[in-house]
């Protein structure tokens, strides 16, 4: 093995707290670090980061590195890749893991090329090979029709981005001890040539798709915007969120941020209900990890029935109201 040490996961905050993907990364990161007999570190980059980062220690980190400068207020490929490059060259981690988030998807590929190492994105499983001690990275390909396992034999660190909600998050232990270490990448700010000139945050009413335990999804079969009101009512009843496949989003029957799939959100709720959608591989790749999958579609040949646990073949206009009425009645009994 090389003289490299440590497993480093890249932490992210959501509204000032550890993002759910970060506790999941800490879960898998701790397991891999223990198998390699190494330490687990977390790196946070941002501006005015605050205290929450030290909680990563309670969730399994031995060290928490923090790069906190006004320059990193907004994510910009240039500045972030530059900072990560300096960090990796100094700390020399063996493994570097990201969430498959907006940040990870942009940063990890460019960084991997700068470092001349191999990255695998959107992994659903990570393991250490017993003999070679290499990181085996499993990722879905062909829209989830197949799985491929990759290793990176030469470049270092070995890099991966991890799909949300597939790894077991670590549990909090407030008695764990660790160190918070500020890191100064010493970047030349004049060399940063891009800039973020605006941001629009989508209005999310209710529960975020990625964090919802129940997701009700609508597809092309709904054929107009109005049925989405029904789906929203069902989602409210089940304490969940509404999603959609690509056609309703493109046709503007529902907001674009409803989209579940390779384009859009990758979700794995405990209950997924797909209504009037065929189950294109694009969409399946974003939801096939759901625990219980339910489909309502009038076409018995729809691909969605191939991955559904429970299905109803029928017109949603008739099935759905009766289903909702019964759900309401059943839910009032608890």
């Amino acid at each position, binding site marked *: 093995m090389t003289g490299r040490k440590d497993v480093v996961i890249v932490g992210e905050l959501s509204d000032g707290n550890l993002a759910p993907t970060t506790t999941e990364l800490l879960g898998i990161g701790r397991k891999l670090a223990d198998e390699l007999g190494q330490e687990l570190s977390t790196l946070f980059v941002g501006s005015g980061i605050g205290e929450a980062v030290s909680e990563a220690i309670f969730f399994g980190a031995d060290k928490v590195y923090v790069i906190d400068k006004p320059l990193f207020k907004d994510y*910009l*490929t240039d500045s972030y890749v530059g900072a990560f490059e300096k960090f990796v060259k100094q700390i020399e981690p063996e493994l570097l893991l990201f969430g498959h*988030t*907006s940040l990870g*998807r942009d940063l990890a*590929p*460019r960084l*991997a*090329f700068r470092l001349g*190492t*191999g990255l695998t*994105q*959107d992994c659903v499983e990570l393991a250490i090979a017993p003999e070679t001690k290499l990181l*085996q990275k499993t*990722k*879905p*390909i*062909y829209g989830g*029709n*197949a*799985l*491929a*396992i*990759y*290793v*990176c034999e030469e470049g270092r660190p070995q890099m991966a981005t991890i799909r949300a909600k597939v790894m077991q998050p670590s549990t909090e232990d407030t008695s764990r001890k660790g160190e918070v270490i500020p890191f100064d990448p010493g970047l030349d700010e004049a060399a940063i*040539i891009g800039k*973020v000139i605006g*941001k*629009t945050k*989508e209005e999310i009413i209710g529960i975020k798709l*990625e964090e919802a335990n129940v997701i009700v999804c609508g597809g092309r079969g709904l054929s107009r915007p109005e049925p989405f009101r029904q789906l929203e009512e069902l989602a409210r009843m089940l304490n969940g969120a509404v999603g959609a496949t690509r056609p309703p989003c*493109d046709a503007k029957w529902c907001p674009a*941020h409803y989209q579940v799939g390779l*384009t859009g959100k990758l979700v794995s709720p405990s209950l997924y209900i797909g209504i009037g959608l065929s189950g*294109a*591989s694009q969409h399946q790749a974003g939801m096939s990890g759901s625990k*219980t999958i*339910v489909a*309502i579609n009038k076409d018995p040949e729809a*691909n969605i029935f*191939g991955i559904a*646990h*429970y*299905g*109803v*073949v*029928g*017109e949603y206009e*008739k*099935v*759905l*109201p*009766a*289903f*909702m*009425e*019964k*759900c309401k009645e*059943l839910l009032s009994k608890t």
Partner: protein
Amino acid sequence: MNMIVCVKEILDPEIPAKSFKIDPEAKRAIKPQDVQLVISDYDESAVEAALKIKDSLESKITVMSLGNESARNVIWRCIAMGADEGVLLSDPLFNDSDSFATAFVLAEAIKKLGDFDLILCGRQEGDWDAGQVGSGIAELLGIPSVTMVGNIEAKDGRVVVERVISDGRETVEVPLPALVTVSSEVGEPRYPSFRRVREASKKEIPTWNAQDITPAKPRNKMLSLFVPPRELKCEFITGEIPEEAGINLALKLREVKAI
């Protein structure tokens, strides 16, 4: 604007799951006989994004594809959509490459082509979904990259682009030359007329091989490729009338404690 769009010819990811077969030895998907290869759909969005710029600004679009001889069809299709030139990068030595080796060949080909203002790629391939080639080309060429772009505005030596991020949109400005990876939010790709398709197929497409471009060594190695077992069988919930099936579905979900 001088633009280069990188496109890939792939096995249609929307073929029914039961027609999808792999060759575990070769670690490749097997193309069913009756299925046509298609342009990767995000790459088609990248072509559309380039054409939108060309609609309002005098431009030249060169389409580049790394693949087999048949990838020429995909280049011709892009020309029928409105692109101007094409280059095919094809050599047995270019096969079995990972994202690193692919981006390397494309970056070398772009250098060989010479001048450009903007390079456009799809945000990820529709088959291997690696999502690295665009950023990789930009890094190898030392130019700025912006990924997951839904809208592009080019003006005065720079581009202002809208990125699609998890909680909304972000507007980023970078100077040219630059590279963007395009997402489907850019809008429905235009459909070429039959006449244009026929005319495009007369266009000469030069092929560059490993004598023109020396390939690089891949970084990742695929250990195995497999189709996960699907023992799952859907339990169909029925009823005399659709409404009854709906009620029975609710009862079933309560029984298995899903609601």
